[in-house]
Structures are given as C-alpha cells and as structure tokens.
C-alpha cells in the first residue's frame, strides 16, 4: 500500500516535470517567434517610437608616442540634426540651409519630410559653418557634439597606430588591440518627451553624456620611427624592392622604439589604399630568414659546448653532400673558424655545426629563442611563423634549417631573438604600449619589461656578440652596416623566396635582411631591416645593411649616445644628417672608378686595394661583390676593364699583406 502510494507520487511528480518541459519549450518557441521570425517588425517599431534615442559617439582616447606627441586624436565637432515635427515650414528651412550645406534644396526637403522624427542634417560640421547655422536659430534644428578620429602625423607609425572605421571602432593596429579601452562610453540624446508623458527626458536633451575613452602611450619614439621609415623607404625604392620592414627595439626591455613598413599609408584616408599597404608586415608576415639564422645556431652550439670558439671546420671547398643533396657556399672556403663561418656566412660550415648539435638540441634552442611561437606583442594579427617539430625533420632539413632555410619567422620574432643575444641571453616579451590611463591620469594598465626565459648564458651571448661584430668588420658580409664611432654586431641574410605558385624556391626572388645591435658592449638598439624582393642586388649586406647603418647612426645621435670608439676624420658632427650617398670625386680618383658604358659599368682594377676601398666603390654602384679572404686584393673577376652588369657575379680575393 505504502509502496504503491510512493510509486504513484513519483509518477505524478514526473508528470509535473514533463509539463514544465512543455511550458519551457513554449517559452522558447515564443522567444524564437519574437526575436527571429518577427524581428523586423520590432526593429521598425523601435525606429518609429515617438521618442527617439540617438546614440552619441564618444571621444576615443588619444594615442601618444613616448615623447608625448599625439599620433591619434579625437576632435570634437558639431553635428546638426533636425526634428521635423518641430519645424514650422520645411521648404523655407530647406531653402535657407541647403546653400550653407552645399546640398540641393530638394534633397534636404526630402530628408526633412520623411517619416522619421529625427534626421541628421549633416554630421561633423566645420566650426564656422556650425556657428552660421546656429546663428539662424531655426526651431527644430539642433546640434550635438560628436567626435571624429584624426591622425596628426599622417603616415608616421601608421601600421602601429592603425585606424578606425566610420563609427569609431578600431580596425587595425593599436586602435584595434586596445579598442575596448579607448572606446569610451556611448551617450544618448533623447529627442522627444517619452510616450507616457513623464517629465524625464525633454526634447533634445542629452540623457547620458558620452565619456572619453582611455589614452594609450606607446613605447614608439616618433623621431626614431621617422628615421626608420625614411631610411627604409630609401632602401626599398633604391633597390627597386616590393616591400620592406624596419624594426628598432631596446634589447634590454623589449620596448619597440620604431616599427616601419613599406609600402605605407595615411590613416586619415586609409580607404584609398590597397590592402597590402595596410598590413603591418613586421608582425603579420613571415619570411625565410636565411643566414641571419646562423647566429642562433652558433649560439646554441656554443652553449651546448659542441663547438668552441677557436674550433675550425672544413668547409669542403664550397660544395658538400648531405642528406642526399649537395649544398653550396657562394664562395669556396677551405677551413674556417667558427667565427668566420658567421663572418663569411658559410652554409657548409653552418650545416656541419648543425650536424654536431643534432636536431633535438637545435630545435629546443630555436624554440627557446621564440621561433614558432607568437612573441605576444600587443598588436593584432601576429603570426607564429613556421618551425616544424624536430621529429618531422627529414634528410637535408637539419642542414638547411641550420642556415635558415625551410623555416619562417616574423620580423618581430627575429628582432626579439637578436635582442636576447644583445642583452646577455634573456628572451624578452616585446611590447609597444607602455601604459594606458584614463582621463584623470589614473593608470589602467602599465607594461613592464618581461623576461620570458633565459636562452643562453651571458658568456655565450658575449662571445656571439663579438663574432657578430666581425661581420661588420673588414672582410665580413655586413661591412656596410658599420656605424662611425660605434661598434656594431650584426648578421646579413639573403634568402630565396618560395614561389607561392610552384611551391619551390624562386630563381630570382630574394629576401635580403640585416639584423644587429649597437654598440656591442652596451647595446642601446637592436635594429632589423628586411627588404623584400630587391632588384638591384639580392644581398642583405648590400641592400639592407646601409639602411641599418643609417638608422643606427641617426638614432644614436638623436638619443645622444656617446661614441664608444674614435670617430673617423671625415665623420660628421653628431646631430647633422649624414652626407647623401654620392660618390666623392677625391675618393673616386684614388680608388678607381666605374665608367658607364653602353652595356653597363667597366670593372675597375682592385689589385692592391684594401677591402674597405673595394667595398666603398662597389657599394656606391649597388653592385654585389663577394669578398674572399682578408688583406689586400690579389685577384678579381671580371678582369679589370671588362663590362659588368648589376646582375653579374663579382668577386675579389684578398690575402693578408706581409
């Protein structure tokens, strides 16, 4: 009996549970009907409400650079609206306003006679025009303050700052990344008494003021940014390249001081630019690094003690079979010291070091330097680059990865990794926003230098730095990166590009780069210059290194960095721009020259000249010259007097004098 009663109670409870399920389905169906089936009806009704609520766009926060200059500001402007119900004589008002607004009377009349209770007459009026209309004192015409985004420095740091759309939503760059903080609160304007006649909101009254969003302070220095942009543009246009990137970073902190892209755009008119101009290549693109990668290979090998600084490697005379293929050096070398592998950028030497290190250790160091992972810089659209797990390296992969092929990375990754070498071994988290504060100056967000991990020891870092200094010394591949008065550590990179159509290395397209830091002992700046598809020469040492040198020189002058070594006699006083790269007649006579013939230049006689002299002459002609050995020139190709073209392979061999 008792069990029976409990059984029935349970059945009845289940019935109630089922009824609940039914009524909740009913509610869901009703919501579906109201919100999805009939949505348009309600949207229309909302628009026709007697009382209209107009959102007021808030002023976005200002973006400042590290010197306090505004890069993006919101300017307050008057917007003019009409409440047609309150206008006595629409044709007359239209006739008075139309000429002022530079629109046709008919058009305005049509607007005012529509069914809406609220229409914008014109938004963002010029101040004098707004005053003129206000002075007319027409009933039913009102004004409200709205804001509009303006970029006072136009192109400067355009890719970093980004831009906003018509409604003030950030679409790119810091404008996008920090959109929600910079947005501010939307205000509302109520245009009529509300339907119940309650005396809450009166005609044209702002019921809620919009409030300005937070201000963003960048680490970018407008002046260094300008230098980087100017020199990058010069390097890209000078080499008839398609694009380029220049990055300047503070190695100890990871602060970005400049991030320049070419081609660039004016954010005040971003709609007129092609998408490829708007992209921030420094974080959004990845490329094969080529030889700059050898820095990290050798750093890993030294740290793991598989090689020591003074070891020598047999570079097989320029051709070496590995993993079923043959790799080549651009010049033939016999035996090279580890530092020379970097200095002359020997692929064979790199492959041999890679083999000693082995795939696991190389991979773990590359991961350690941050490759294959986002740096998590506070900019949108960052790519990870491409670094396969070492379990998926086959055949020649270990060898090619050792000299920077078959992997890809972003400019920001490369600059961050080189900064780790510069600062004594710590991989920093790069950042570009120093702080965000509200309008009372209260700090909402503050960035601090953040060490992600220690990658290599202080000792290894300084050894590598010394070796990188050799690259810019006489005979190195990066002599054009040298900066008068300062020691420069760096590495050139020249990588074949993969043709997206054939998925194979392109015969002609190259990415030329130079990355390094200055001064070597107490690095102030890490600088990376990447030139995409240069035409005049494909070598990083030719195309990118001079831009590096210019950016470094001018930035150090601007930062008032004291020179660490004696200036050369011809050096310019700090602060003044360097002379334009013109051939100076005195030097020409002394060092031999090119004579422009119908088919190109004639090869000068370099015999007996120093490496520096050779480079000075060749560099000025944007010719690509390979320097073999060190000391005085003894042999050259082509022979003196022969005609040469830009695309020709030119080499000069040197032997130590006496």
């Amino acid at each position: 009996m008792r069990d029976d009663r409990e059984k029935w109670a349970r059945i009845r409870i289940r019935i109630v549970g089922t009824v609940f399920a039914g009524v909740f389905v009913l509610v869901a169906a009703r919501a579906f009907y109201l919100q999805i089936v009939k949505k348009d009806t309600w949207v229309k009704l909302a628009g026709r409400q007697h009382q209209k609520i107009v959102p007021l766009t808030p002023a976005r926060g200002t973006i400042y650079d590290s010197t306090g200059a505004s890069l993006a500001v919101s300017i307050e402007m008057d917007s003019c609206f009409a409440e047609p119900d309150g206008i006595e004589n629409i044709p007359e008002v239209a006739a008075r306003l139309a000429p002022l607004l530079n629109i046709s009377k008919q058009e305005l009349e049509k607007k005012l006679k529509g069914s809406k209770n609220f229409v914008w007459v014109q938004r963002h009026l010029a101040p004098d025009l707004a005053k003129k209309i206000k002075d007319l004192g027409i009933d039913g015409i009102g004004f409200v303050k709205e804001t509009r985004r303006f970029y006072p420095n136009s192109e400067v740091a355009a890719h970093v700052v980004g831009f906003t759309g018509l409604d003030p939503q950030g679409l790119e760059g810091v404008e996008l990344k920090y959109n929600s903080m910079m947005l501010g609160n939307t205000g509302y304007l109520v245009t009529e008494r509300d339907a119940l006649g309650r005396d809450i909101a009166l005609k044209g009254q702002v019921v809620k003021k919009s409030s300005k969003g937070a201000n963003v302070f960048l680490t970018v220095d407008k002046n260094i940014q300008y230098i980087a942009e100017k020199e990058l543009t010069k390097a890209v246009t000078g080499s008839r390249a398609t694009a380029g990137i220049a990055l300047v970073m503070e190695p100890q902190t990871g602060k970005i001081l400049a991030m320049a892209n070419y081609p660039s755009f004016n954010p005040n008119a971003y709609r007129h630019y092609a998408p490829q101009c708007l992209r921030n290549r420094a974080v959004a693109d990845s490329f094969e690094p080529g030889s700059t990668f050898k820095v990290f290979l050798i750093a890993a090998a030294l740290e793991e003690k598989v090689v020591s600084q003074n070891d020598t490697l047999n570079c097989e005379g320029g051709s070496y079979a590995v993993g079923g293929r043959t790799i080549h050096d651009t010049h033939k070398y016999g035996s090279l010291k580890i530092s020379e592998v970097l200095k002359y950028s020997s692929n064979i030497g790199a492959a041999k070091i890679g083999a000693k290190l082995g795939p696991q250790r190389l991979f773990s160091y590359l991961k350690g330097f941050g490759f294959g992972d986002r740096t998590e810089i506070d900019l949108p659209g960052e790519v990870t680059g491409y670094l396969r797990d070492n379990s998926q390296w086959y055949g020649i992969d270990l060898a090619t990865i050792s000299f920077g092929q078959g992997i890809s990375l972003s400019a920001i990754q490369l600059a961050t990794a080189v900064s780790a070498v510069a600062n004594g071994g710590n991989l920093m988290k790069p950042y570009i926003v120093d702080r965000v504060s509200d309008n009372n100056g209260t700090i909402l967000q503050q960035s601090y230098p953040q060490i992600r991990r220690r990658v290599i020891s202080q000792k290894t870092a300084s050894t590598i730095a010394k070796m990188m200094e050799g690259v810019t010394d006489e005979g190195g591949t990066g002599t054009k990166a040298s900066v008068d008065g300062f020691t420069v550590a760096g590495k050139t990179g020249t990588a074949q590009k993969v043709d997206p159509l054939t998925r194979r290395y392109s015969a002609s397209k190259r990415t030329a780069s130079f990355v390094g830091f200055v001064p070597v002992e107490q690095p102030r700046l890490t600088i990376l210059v990447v030139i995409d598809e240069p035409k005049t020469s494909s070598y990083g040492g030719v195309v990118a290194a001079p831009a590096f040198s210019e950016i470094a020189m001018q930035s150090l002058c601007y930062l008032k960095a004291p020179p660490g070594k004696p200036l050369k006699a011809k050096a310019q006083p700090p602060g003044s721009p360097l002379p334009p790269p013109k051939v100076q007649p005195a030097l020409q006579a002394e060092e031999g020259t090119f004579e422009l013939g119908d088919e190109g230049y004639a090869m000068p006689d370099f015999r007996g000249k120093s490496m520096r002299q050779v480079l000075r002459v060749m560099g000025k002609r944007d010719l690509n010259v390979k320097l073999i050995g060190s000391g005085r020139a003894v042999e050259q190709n082509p022979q003196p007097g022969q005609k040469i073209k830009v695309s020709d392979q030119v080499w000069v061999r040197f032997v130590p004098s006496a």
Partner: protein
Amino acid sequence: MKKAEGYDLIIVLMVVALTCFGVVMVYSASSIMATKKFHDGFYFLKRQGIYALLGFGAMAVAMRIDYHFWKKAAIPILLACLGLLVLVLIPGIGGSAGGSSRWLRLPGFSFQPSEMAKIAFIMYMAFSLDKKQDKVRFFSTGFLPYMVVLAVMLLLLLKQPDLGSSLTLGCVAMVMLFAAGTRLSYILSMLLLALPFLYYAIMHVDYRRRRIMAFLNPWEDPSNTGFQIIQSWIAVGTGGVFGQGLGEGKQKLFYLPEAHTDFIFSVVGEELGFIGVMVIVAMFFLLIQRGIRVALYAEDNFGRSLAFGISTLVGLEAFVNIAVVTGIFPTKGLALPFISYGGSSLIITLFAVGILLNISSRVRVLS
C-alpha cells in the same frame, strides 16, 4: 547498494550563475535610471550585490540545517507569516509602493512578507501531507484543511493587493496536492470554483481590467494600456539572434517600465538576443529538472513534498515572468527568481534552494 550523493552541484552551479548574471543585468538595466534618480549609476548594483551575498549566506546556512527541522518549525513559521501579512496591512507599519502595501519597514531595512509566506506555506503543506499519509485522499482530511489555510493566505495577499503572488501560491498548492495523491476531481472542481472569484478580482479592479484588455488587444491603445507589453516586445524582438550587446539596450532608457525588476528579462532579450534567452531558459529548466530529481529520490515523504514544492515555486515563477515579458500572459507584478532586482525575493529564494540542497545531500539512488 544505495549511497548518498552529496549536495547536487548542478543546482549550486545554476543558482550561483543565475544570481551573478542577475547582478550584472540589474546594473545594465538600472544604471542610467539610477544616475538620473539617485546620481549614482551603481545604486541598484550595490544593493543587489549585497542581497546576493546575504542570499548566498542564507543558502549556505539552510544547506547545513537538517531539513527535518522544518517539520517541527512549519506550523510556527506559518503562523508567524500570517501575522506578518496582517501587520503589512496596518497603515503606519506597512509601507506602500505604487498603490499596494507589500512592505514591512524595519529600522535599517524593509522586506516583503509575501515572499516568506510562500515558503512557509510549502513547508506547512509538506509537513501536513506527510503526517496524514494515506488520508490525503479523503476530502475532509486531505483537501479541505489546505483550502482553508490557502484561502486565508490568499485573502491577506489580495488585500495588499498582490494578485501575482496569490495566483502563484494557489497553483503551487494545487500542484503539490496533485503530486501527493489528491483526487483530480477535487482539484478540478476547486479550479472551476475559483474562476468566478478570479473574474471578480480582475474585473472589479480597474487597473487589472485594463491590463487584461491590454493583453487581449495591446494595439488598441499602444501608448497607454498596451504600452508595457508593446515596449517589452520591442525590446525582446529587436534583440534578434545575438542581441544588441550587454549594456547596449535602448528600451531600458525610460521605455520599459520596471526594467530592473519585473521586466528585466526584456532587457536580457534585447541585449543578449535569442541566444542569451535560450541560455537563461535552459539554465532555469536544468535547475528545475534537478530539483524534481531531488524530489523523486528524496529520503522520505516530507523531503519529497518539500523539494517538489520549492522546485515548483521557482519553476512557476520563472515561467510566468518570462511568459508575461514575451506576452503569453497578461502583465502582473512577478519577479524573475535570482535575476530581478529585489532583496526579499532573492534572499528567500536562495534560502529555499539551500533547503532543497540539504534534501539533495540525503538523496539515495540505486547505483
């Protein structure tokens, strides 16, 4: 082999999530109005936050009290509540808002005894149904006494006047009797008998008649009697699939009456869209199904009736509120449990959930 399950964590999760969501929505719905009225946009947010904390405290306490305690306490609590309901009606003690005296003002705070009365009545019924065992099938012992107590309570509630609470309580009573085994014929004839009273209660009170007329044809006078429901429809309807975004609703700006209390669900519909509505409805549904599950597997008859009564009350209130907001039912002043602004309702409901959780901790299921 039977084993105790411990507290029903899904119920805890749903209730905490709904309450926290409620605090957010109260802020969204009230901030502009509060700025205008009190010069403090956080006015209602602060209060609702404190109520939620007090409510969680009440829930934590009730969870730890062996629910058999309420068997002994049921009759004294019921009598106390009836006393309070009488007190509310005495001018000078009861405070009134909007033409009805529902509030009992004490130094420092005020509360609505009707919220407490609902739980007291459920406790009383669970206690009494358990005591009477099989006698619930007889009219004189198992039906009539409840009707008398219910009638007294409803009269006091209607005097306030609070038709919404009266109808909810009546429904909960009938559903509990149904589950306890009362003959359907009694329940149905009771409902038939109640209809003329209901008709009288509505048609002889002007504002209720207008509400019904507005419900039947809101477009007859859209700016007056039909105003509330049309504004609610516009709010919910313009939400679409994804909503306008949290805090972005416009209807709460003086269109929606009681945007932070009875019509808070309109704001949910407008700001979070169909997806938000579905999530909230699903959370309520899950909560109620878990509550009913506790009733099904409760240790004893008292626990079963109590768990069932509490679940039914919460489910019914949620359903009726959402039904009103979406225009299935005519407007009446009923809060949405856990979400609407209001201290008494939130604290008492959380307290009742605490009791439900204590019952759930003793649930035994075959494993």
